């Protein structure tokens, strides 16, 4: 037992700790799934459909089977029920139309890239060579490719279903009792107020994580071990067990080092299921690693929506109602979250504003394209884009500064907690403060003055300033709310703390990091709360035999849900240690105080450290009779509410009116994410998020040709930004601590992506609005910007405010379809 020891440790929370993860990553001492090599391991290659929609007439595997070092070639018919199924965890309506999704169908393919056969060989090269020798006869079927056309059921993506319409999901504030009647608000606004009606395109994107997906399955032990480049080892284990009949307890899933995900690895993939089935059948370890082309073509895509919106306001620019109609392209199957992605945006179109009436309608549609699912932000970037573009349109209609119009409509800091028209309770925030700071950082007023000068002078290169204020619901999610939304699982998270005999601490989390830096940030939290050195904390995750419970990483949930579970587990450790400390110190438990990792007897210099107590519990020679000899504890935390970070993002762009070239001059953002655990990691999350969001605005798009072939199926064609395309950012924070978790934290993983896309497009439109342009379809490529400028006055302009929009005889008038596209 130690005598008095002043706690000298600096507070860990808030420190710019360098990451624990980095040493192995910067020296190449990594454990990516594709690095694994097991004795006798066989390699898989997939035979994929070149057609978007076709009947499989026959598959001749003879030549491939006869090739040297080929072990077997298997089809869907060969694997049968053993292949399991790819699940949809979220039927958004009771009557959702959900096509069966076999990992390897044997009768019909529904998108180009779908697997029809798998080759098993001694090397990956030989497997690929033999895949070329598999002779598949297809009978092509008409393919449903265009989203709007598919919504009319002109061509069916799955003929047996009789429709492409999967589910219609609606929220109406009048029906829900959270607000007024939106149609009444619009009718009122048509008579003397302002009605803005627009249609925006959320183009199809590809998550494009840097590590291609890879899976290794070893069936040789009592448990079948699956290593996978996944964000969701726990959910994957559940899905494999639920669809193959193999007991969950016989499956171990490990997500080793995982090279990025952004939602793209939030999936139970056909390739994982096929590898699992093949390994079980052959009895040997197998590996499948996709090529980049396979990844871009068949790993799930994101976004892909048409958004029709009607915003009603009074003549002073106070919004009185918002109506949203979405068409969302699911692709060929309803993926694991699937139609839930647009629903995650349903509560966010009203954003930071006090709208009295709101209605959200979403129709999900099946097509013969790669299936879509979560991509960074999942639903919330779409919502933020929609409303922030509309608020700029309202400002233009009023002839006012877009920030002023937002201010008139947003929730004042004094009004929190605030229940929104979508029924969510925002706990805290200060939109004015974040906006003021962002304006200072950008030099907003100076740039507005420069913009006016250059506009007046008729400069060839025009300056535009884009505004985006945002909030998001993250920290997915309160389990009961998920239940009400018909989601198939809960949203809790689990953590446990193991106090080792030597005083070191093992922390186990159900969150599954793939680049976020959990090992560092979670160590900081535990070091502070438990009063142990940062270096003594080891964070373990991503292995279902170590972290036996968890719901993994997505939706900016790891810190605000997983971190809170950790706090509760640490608190239990301290509670468990207290009677042992009292026993050893021969003191009353009530007289003990826990400071800096040590129980001290108040008013004396007597005390005992948590490390000493861990050692004493391990030896178990002397402990109270009514306690177990262990300090270890675990906690499962179910969040009480979503979590609402917010921020103001401002972007200044230069648009060359002769070439259409857009270049970003300055980007400044002030995000309020509550208390910050590690400012360095937070900055990294913001920077990366910004570039992904900016990339949607300016560069990225998954493009299909008329026959349903992805023509942007390589990094030569899919424009991922490089160092040369991007710039350094001005990033700062205001702090409104969350009131719904102990640490006062808010999610940051998706914030940058959610906020930045509308900031950039608003800036581009702002630069050319004086030419009569009110929209340019994303990505705002030089060609599209140039075309919009050339066509200004005929196709791009807003002809007036309260006019009957979307009439059949004026196609494209206020839609981006065809306008500058």
């Amino acid at each position, binding site marked *: 037992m130690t005598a008095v020891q002043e706690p000298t440790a600096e507070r860990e929370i808030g420190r710019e700790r*360098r*990451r624990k*993860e*980095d*040493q*192995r*990553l*910067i*020296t*190449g*001492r*990594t454990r*990516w799934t*594709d*690095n694994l*090599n097991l004795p006798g391991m066989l390699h898989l290659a997939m035979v994929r459909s070149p057609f978007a929609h076709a009947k499989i007439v026959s598959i001749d595997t003879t030549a491939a089977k006869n090739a040297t070092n080929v072990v077997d070639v298997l089809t869907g018919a060969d694997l049968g029920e053993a292949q399991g199924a790819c699940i949809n965890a979220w039927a958004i309506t009771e009557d959702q139309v959900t096509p069966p999704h076999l990992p390897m169908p044997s009768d019909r393919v529904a998108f180009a890239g779908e697997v029809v056969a798998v080759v098993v060989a001694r090397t990956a*090269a030989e497997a690929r060579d033999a895949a070329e020798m598999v002779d598949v006869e297809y009978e092509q079927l008409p393919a449903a490719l265009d989203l709007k056309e598919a919504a009319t059921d002109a061509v069916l993506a799955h003929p047996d279903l009789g429709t492409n319409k999967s589910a219609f999901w609606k929220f109406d504030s009048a029906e829900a009792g959270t607000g007024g009647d939106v149609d009444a608000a619009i009718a009122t606004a048509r008579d003397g107020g302002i009605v803005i009606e627009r249609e925006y395109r959320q183009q199809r994107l590809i998550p*494009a*994580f*840097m*590590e*291609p997906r890879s899976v290794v399955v070893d069936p040789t032990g009592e448990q079948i071990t699956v290593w996978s480049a996944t964000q969701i080892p726990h959910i994957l284990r559940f899905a494999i067990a639920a669809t193959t009949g193999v007991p969950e307890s016989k499956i171990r899933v490990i997500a080793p*080092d*995982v*090279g*990025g995900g*952004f939602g793209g690895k939030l999936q139970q993939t056909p390739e994982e299921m096929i590898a699992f089935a093949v390994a079980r059948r052959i009895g040997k370890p197998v590996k499948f690693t996709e*090529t*980049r*082309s396979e990844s871009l073509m068949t790993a799930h895509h994101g976004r892909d929506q048409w958004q029709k919106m009607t915003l009603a306001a009074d003549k002073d620019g106070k919004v009185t109602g918002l109506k949203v109609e979405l068409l969302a392209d699911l692709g060929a199957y309803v993926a694991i979250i699937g139609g839930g992605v647009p629903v995650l945006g349903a509560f966010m179109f009203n954003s930071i504003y006090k709208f009295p009436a709101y209605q959200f309608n979403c129709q999900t549609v099946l097509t013969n394209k790669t299936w879509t699912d979560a991509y960074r932000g999942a639903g919330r970037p779409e919502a933020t884009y929609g409303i922030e573009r509309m608020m700029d349109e309202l400002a233009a209609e009023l002839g006012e500064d877009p920030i002023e119009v937002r201010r008139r409509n947003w929730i004042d800091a004094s009004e929190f907690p605030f229940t929104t028209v979508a029924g969510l309770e925002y706990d805290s925030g200060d939109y004015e403060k974040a906006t003021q700071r962002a304006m200072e950082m950008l030099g907003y007023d100076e740039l507005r003055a420069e913009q006016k000068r250059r506009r007046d002078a008729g400069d060839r290169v025009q300056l535009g300033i884009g505004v985006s204020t945002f909030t998001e619901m993250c920290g997915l999610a309160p389990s009961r709310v998920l239940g009400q939304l018909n989601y198939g699982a809960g949203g809790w998270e689990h953590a446990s703390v193991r106090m080792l005999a030597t005083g070191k601490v093992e922390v186990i989390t159900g969150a599954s990091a*793939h*680049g*976020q*830096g959990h090992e560092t940030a979670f160590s900081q939290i535990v070091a502070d709360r438990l009063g142990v050195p940062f270096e003594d904390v080891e964070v373990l995750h991503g292995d279902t035999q170590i972290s036996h419970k968890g719901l993994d990483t997505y939706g900016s949930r790891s810190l605000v849900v997983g971190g809170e579970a950790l706090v509760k587990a640490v608190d239990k450790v301290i509670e468990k240690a207290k009677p042992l400390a009292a026993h050893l110190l021969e003191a009353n438990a009530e007289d003990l105080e826990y400071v800096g990792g040590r129980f001290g007897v108040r008013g004396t210099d007597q005390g005992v450290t948590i490390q000493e107590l861990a050692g004493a519990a391990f030896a178990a020679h002397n402990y109270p009779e009514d306690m177990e000899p262990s300090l270890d504890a675990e906690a499962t935390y179910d969040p009480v509410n979503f979590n609402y970070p917010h921020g103001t993002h401002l972007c200044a762009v230069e648009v060359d009116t002769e070439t259409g070239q857009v270049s970003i001059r300055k980007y400044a953002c002030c995000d309020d994410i509550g208390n910050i655990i590690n400012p*360095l*990691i937070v*900055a*990294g999350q913001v*920077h*990366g*998020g*910004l*570039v*992904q969001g900016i990339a949607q605005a300016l560069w990225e798009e998954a493009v299909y040709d008329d026959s349903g072939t992805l023509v942007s199926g*390589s*990094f*030569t064609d899919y424009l*991922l*930004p*490089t*160092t*040369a395309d*991007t710039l*350094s*950012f001005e990033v700062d924070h205001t702090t409104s601590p969350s009131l719904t978790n102990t640490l006062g934290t808010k999610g940051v993983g998706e914030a*940058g992506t959610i906020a930045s896309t509308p900031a950039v497009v608003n800036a581009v439109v702002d630069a050319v609005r004086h030419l009569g342009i009110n929209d340019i379809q994303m990505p705002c490529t030089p060609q599209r910007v140039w075309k919009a400028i050339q066509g200004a006055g005929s196709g791009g302009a807003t002809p007036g405010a309260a006019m009957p929009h979307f009439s059949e005889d004026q196609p494209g008038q206020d839609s981006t379809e065809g306008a500058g596209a």
Partner: protein
Amino acid sequence: MTRISLTVDGAKVADDVEPRMLLVQYLRERLGKTGTVVGCDTSNCGACTVHLDGTSVKSCNVLAVQADGCEVTTIEGLAQDGELHPVQEAFRECHGLQCGFCTPGMIMQSVALLKDNPSPSEEEIRLGLEGNLCRCTGYHNIVKAVQHACGQGAGAQQEVTA
């Protein structure tokens, strides 16, 4: 099969390889140098960047047989005697990596960049790293890491150019 002999991270190695085998496959599959990774199949991403006789190359774009008689340095051979290379240190210091998958290539390219230009401007850094993709960092801190690495004084600079 063709016989090749080369030096990889200071070690002399020799193997019979298929003429079509890529250098990156040779490094990963035959030598177990899994620190070097494959991120694409069109030589766009640069994740597999190594040094071939002191010049940075995308090792998916070089046949193993072309490396016969050459000296190859991978991310695993960059640290000397347990001391991180200043560029490795700078990436950690400046949080220039998140998932870390692009990092080996990004570091190898940064080392080559600084060898050619010991005090690059931000624009020169951005142009010099254009062939290496990262999806996590938004490049902001990668650029800062390279700036940090070359601002370490003459001693560090010598190491950078070594």
